[in-house]
């Protein structure tokens, strides 16, 4: 799975490079569940996830949902971008999360989604 950088705004680019010399770094990520499953299933503690994945947030949430991992998370803080944020909220609501949705950057339509598992 690769990150789709084509549809994200400048504001979403990682600040790993100087803004006057930003470069396009092609990268690949593995499906979220392959790494997360092991962590989630092997800890006696609660799980809190922060997700700021440059526009791939929805893909990650979908993957966690498909693999029954979303329901095992206790709290999520997601910085979501543009169009995907409503779909993210829907996934979270279906998995029994209470949502607090805040528009934190109006021009770039960036939202903070705080999702807490219902007790």
């Amino acid at each position, binding site marked *: 799975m690769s990150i789709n950088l084509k549809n994200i*705004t400048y504001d979403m*680019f990682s*600040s790993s490079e100087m803004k006057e010399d930003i470069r396009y770094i092609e990268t690949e990520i593995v499906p979220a569940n392959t790494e997360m499953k092991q962590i989630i299933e092997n800890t006696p*503690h*609660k799980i*809190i996830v*922060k997700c*700021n994945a440059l526009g791939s947030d929805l893909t990650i949430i979908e993957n966690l949902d498909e693999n029954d991992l979303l329901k095992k998370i206790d709290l999520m803080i997601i910085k979501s971008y543009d169009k995907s944020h409503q779909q993210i909220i829907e996934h979270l609501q279906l998995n029994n999360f209470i949502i607090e949705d805040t528009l934190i950057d109006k021009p770039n339509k960036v939202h903070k989604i705080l999702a807490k598992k219902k007790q």
Partner: protein
Amino acid sequence: MKRICLFAGFDPEGIIDDYVIHYLKELSEYADIHYLADCVIKPKELKKIEPYTKTAAAYRHEKYDFGSWSELINTIGWAEIQKYDELILANDSQYLVGNIYKFITEMENRNLDFWSGLAVCEEYIGGRTPLEQFISEENILETDFTFVSSFMAFSEKLLFEPFIQNFFSNIVRERDRLTVSNKYEIGLSNILIRHKVNFGVFLDDIYSQSSIYKNTALHFLTLGYPFIKVKIFVNQFYPIISPLNRFNVIKFYNPDLDIGPITRHIQRIRKLYNHESDILSSIKKLSLSQIIRALFRFIYEISPKFLSRYFKELIDKYDIYNFETKFSKSKFDYYSKFLTTIPKQRNLARQLEGKKKLIIFFNVARDIVSGGMLSINRFAKKTREIPSLSDFQVIISGVPLFNPPIDYSYFEPVSPQIKFSRIVEHCQPDELLIHLPEVLARTFFENLSEREKEWIVKIPKLQINILNQNAKIMPQRTLIRNILNCLTENITITTAHSTSCTQQLSNEYSAPVHQLTPFLPEFLQVDFEEKRKVILVSNDNKLFDAIKVTKEDIVTKLEKDLPEFKIIEIENVSLEEYKNLIAYSLFTISFGEGFDGYFLEPLLSKSLSFAVFNPFYFPSEFLNSELIYESWEDLYNNIVSDIKMYTKNQETYEFTSEKNRKLVNKYISNTKSLKELENFYNKEYDFVPRPITYHLFDEYKTKLQNAPDFKFFGEPTKDELILTPDDKVYINMRGDFYKVLYEVYIQNLYDFEFEEDFVFIDIGFHAGTASLNLISKNEHLKHIFGFEAMLPTYQIALKNIKDNHVEKT
């Protein structure tokens, strides 16, 4: 102080000139001199310098000055040289016109381990910059930084250092003067810097490489520098004040100097230069050239102020033409093309009469070859094959516009170049798309005549596409938006490297940006059995991110450990020769960006190639390739054993080549390129400009500064350190880093309340700011698992974890 001087000489007529005798006489007051010339000199001539030298010899070894020094070291022996306090290496490429006593004693008082007269770097672009500052700001190992080798001194301590002894024992015959300069002059400078030698120069500022051949050289005399290059008096290229004035300057700073030896030498070698020239016509041209130049300059000097700028332009233009002849077989060939190509050009241009839709690809109008030029040629060819463009005339023209049309020697052009002025003369289209190579975009505009500008702006549908084939030479936004903008608003950019194809580039230039991956030619498929024991190396010399290893180190190792292999550097070969080379050679090594033709194309010829992973160019999938090394040190340590292994095992060789070929085809294929090209013509661009707010990032800094307990150390453009309220320290990553800190510390974006023990999974770990901040905030936090996809960011995150003393597992 007891000094030994090894003095390298050369004279095409085997004469030891009076200026050399004067130099040696002066120098012999301070050092025991051993003289060796890289030419044949009769004993009678050598006798002239007998009073001033310990030994004097001359024979042709063809290794230039570094060779003479190396030969002398072999003859004298390090043991003898080590008895001295200082070793001076000098040559006769310069006249001694100043006070050598002051020069030597001033440097002696500075107690350096190595010193030379001055340090130069062509990449230094001007302004007076102290050497120390220049070195601290630049990664000089990646530049052409060099200590000028015509006078260098090494302390006794250095004479015992194996790296110095090894350097001089490895000097061999090279194919040309430029290679000698790159390998030995720049090479020695690099070695001295890498070994952190305590060095200094007489002139403390950094200067450009060419400064020693220009008026600056006369300025050096004012600073006490005692030498002036012989070439200044015979070179035709660099602009310099008239010979008479040059002597006036020299005499002004050293009134007692007898300039007789210098003038006699100049007269002799100028005469010699003319005699040696093999084309009689070039002598005439040279003389004519001098006359015209002198005439222009004279008129310029005497002309009233309001007219002088026109004469200045004339002089500049004349210099430009002289410069351009360098890319032709001869001056005659260059100038004659203006006339001889007229009939053919007329015919070609006539075919455009009445045509209303044009696509013009501008290629470099110089008889050279580069990857970019080949790409443009193939883009033109493929554009012609696109059915939806069948009503367009796809033609090739050349920039700089003033050059005559070029018949390329190194590759087959898709069609002959038509001079732009001819196109303008013969048609007036309604629709025009101009493809312009980035490097010559400015030149294109500057060379347009008023008529040509008028012709262009008259075209109702006009588009200019800048072919960004190398991000490093992409012109600034001002050129696109303030200059080319005068012709049309409709400007697009296409990029050869996907790493350059970004939203940011589109925003920066306010222009659509589209990826156009170069088309690949058909490569020869040669089986293992037919391949030869040859290792090709690319002609790149600056290794990305190399710390301890140089290209020379690697090549030397290959030569030493793989004597059965022939090492060939790829240079000045035609495309067909290149395709043959990579197909018939067992191995190729790319010393450039890695994800380039030298790595990719041998694989497509069933060969094997090696490179070092560069995160800015390589797709991350290549990290797993057996042919990609993690670092230059890794390559240095393993390349020999890997080559031996693949050479012995045909099956592994073929399997690895095929496996990597498939990987390459995932990213580069002509099908992909064609799709990109079609999308471009359909105006389906990858990125279109979006509104951005650059200034916001600086505003965030102000917001942080206004918040309590943020401290900033250093300059934002350099390595600024930021101390946060929770006592964490970060290096400013620039870009939107202030905004990230603002989100974490002021906006508290990732704050939450949680009263049970938890693990924190941080997807998009970035620099680690959110996670590191959480550590000091929540006692229930047990573990953090961070995920960061961008390799450079990940590396910075690791550094932040380490710098903030957080335990990493």
